[in-house]
């Protein structure tokens, strides 16, 4: 059994659009000055809203629950591979950067990360 490098490695229930009960994979890794949060889409196992539909709200829910200061947050989204020959089902990671406006996360911007960058974060 491989031990997880993460302080948190769980299925995380969250409130989706209009409070719709939803689930994602959640990993949290605490570094010295930053906290890496990785949310993973669960597709069929997620009964509600996708992680990308509610990125800002989900990041806020996680930060509040795990007491993560917004300015220490490195937030990643993972769309896992779906075992398909079609390339739009390949695994892909994005770093999401937010503007911090009036102490709130806003305006998510996604950047696809390379395998090398992924190794740094994961």
């Amino acid at each position: 059994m491989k031990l997880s490098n993460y302080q948190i490695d769980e299925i995380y229930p969250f409130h989706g659009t209009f409070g719709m009960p939803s689930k994602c994979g959640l990993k949290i890794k605490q570094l010295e000055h930053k906290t890496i949060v990785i949310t993973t889409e669960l597709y069929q196992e997620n009964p509600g809203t996708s992680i990308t539909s509610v990125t800002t709200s989900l990041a806020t829910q996680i930060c509040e629950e795990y007491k993560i200061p917004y300015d220490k947050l490195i937030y990643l989204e993972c769309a896992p591979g779906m075992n398909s020959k079609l390339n739009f089902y390949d695994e892909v990671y994005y770093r999401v950067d937010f503007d911090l406006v009036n102490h709130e996360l806003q305006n998510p911007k996604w950047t696809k990360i390379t395998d090398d960058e992924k190794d740094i974060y994961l």
Partner: protein
Amino acid sequence: MKFKLIYPKWRKLEGQTTFNLPPHGPVVMAASIPEHVNVSFTDENVENIDFDEAVDFVGISMMLTVQIKRGYEIAQKYREKGIKVIFGGISTMLHAEETLKHADSIFLGESEGRMEEVFNDWKKGTLKQVYNYLHEHPDITTIGPARRSILNRPLYNHKGVQMVDLFHASRGCRFSCYPCAVSYLGGRKFRPRPIDKAIEELESIDNNRLFIVDNSLAQDKNWETDLFKAMIPLKKKWISHTIDDDPKILDLAAQAGAWYVYQAVFDTSDYIKERIKRYHDHGIGVEGTILLGLDDQTEDDIKRLIDFLLEIDLDLAEFTVLTPFPHTKVWDDLLREGRIFDRDWNNYNAGQVVFQPKHMSPDRLQELYQYAWDSFYKEESQEQKMFKLFSKVVLKEMNDGTFVPRKRELINQSFGKQVIR
């Protein structure tokens, strides 16, 4: 009290044959409205709304994203008169936050067992802003026949030929396909209706030709087998989406009246070619549904795909461009990559490119979309191919004694408008 239920119009795709089918969402919803409520229905695609009609409460039912802006306009007219407006339907669910800004109330989810609450709240003046049943699906065994009596039947005729009626045998979907939102809307579990309930509704429909609108019937072989066996005595003729690729099930489907199916054609493989052939071997026609603009398609791939369609003897083909509807994986992917450049919902008609394709410009994809339609229907027009498919169903009906001649009194009308034969 009088409840006005409205289905907004939308701009149809240019160059394509338009058929206005009786809508399904409003008649399903209407079945759950309390009996004491007087329901007046207008499908704006076939008749104008009489804004002077005296009504107490308005419901706007929206299926397509291209309906929502018109839905907002209609709502505004009624709200200016002080009449409360509630929105529901698939597109209300997909665009809920935006729709709420144009509504007194929105209903999210399936309506069975919930309308008593809505109408009681309206009566008390305590209509809620949001009725959120997105995650609480009603017991599938309680879903009864749709209330088709609200339809103005003669309007769904083209030169005396009655259009197919829409019917559903299940809800939800266990697949999460790239461009589709059904699993978000109806849940990620397949919820088949009990066979006796489905048959009860089928028997009640005064139309021998149907479109079974379920996302895919190929989700539970035992149920699918039982459904087709039970449908055989009804002698209905029907269109549906995918059926299981199993000779026994295809045989039963044919006996149960399968007229033609919509089958996604996504590559040029022998599997697709043989699959189409197996439908044809069972006497079932095939309308290929072809999605253009996927990230794994280059210009050459699209041209090869079109050549392939001509080789495999499809009865009809319907081309669409990839469209990022909210709550689909394609929306998430294109949003993250900043590739959605057009947020005008009127352009989300699956015929207009609203995103940056991976291997070509949006304009080039738009050209290839037109090229696809033109190439496929070059030798034989869409109307000619449709007529051939129509002739097949007429032949089947004549053979089993279910053929109903066109209505002579409507022979000079097409969807409520006068036409010359």
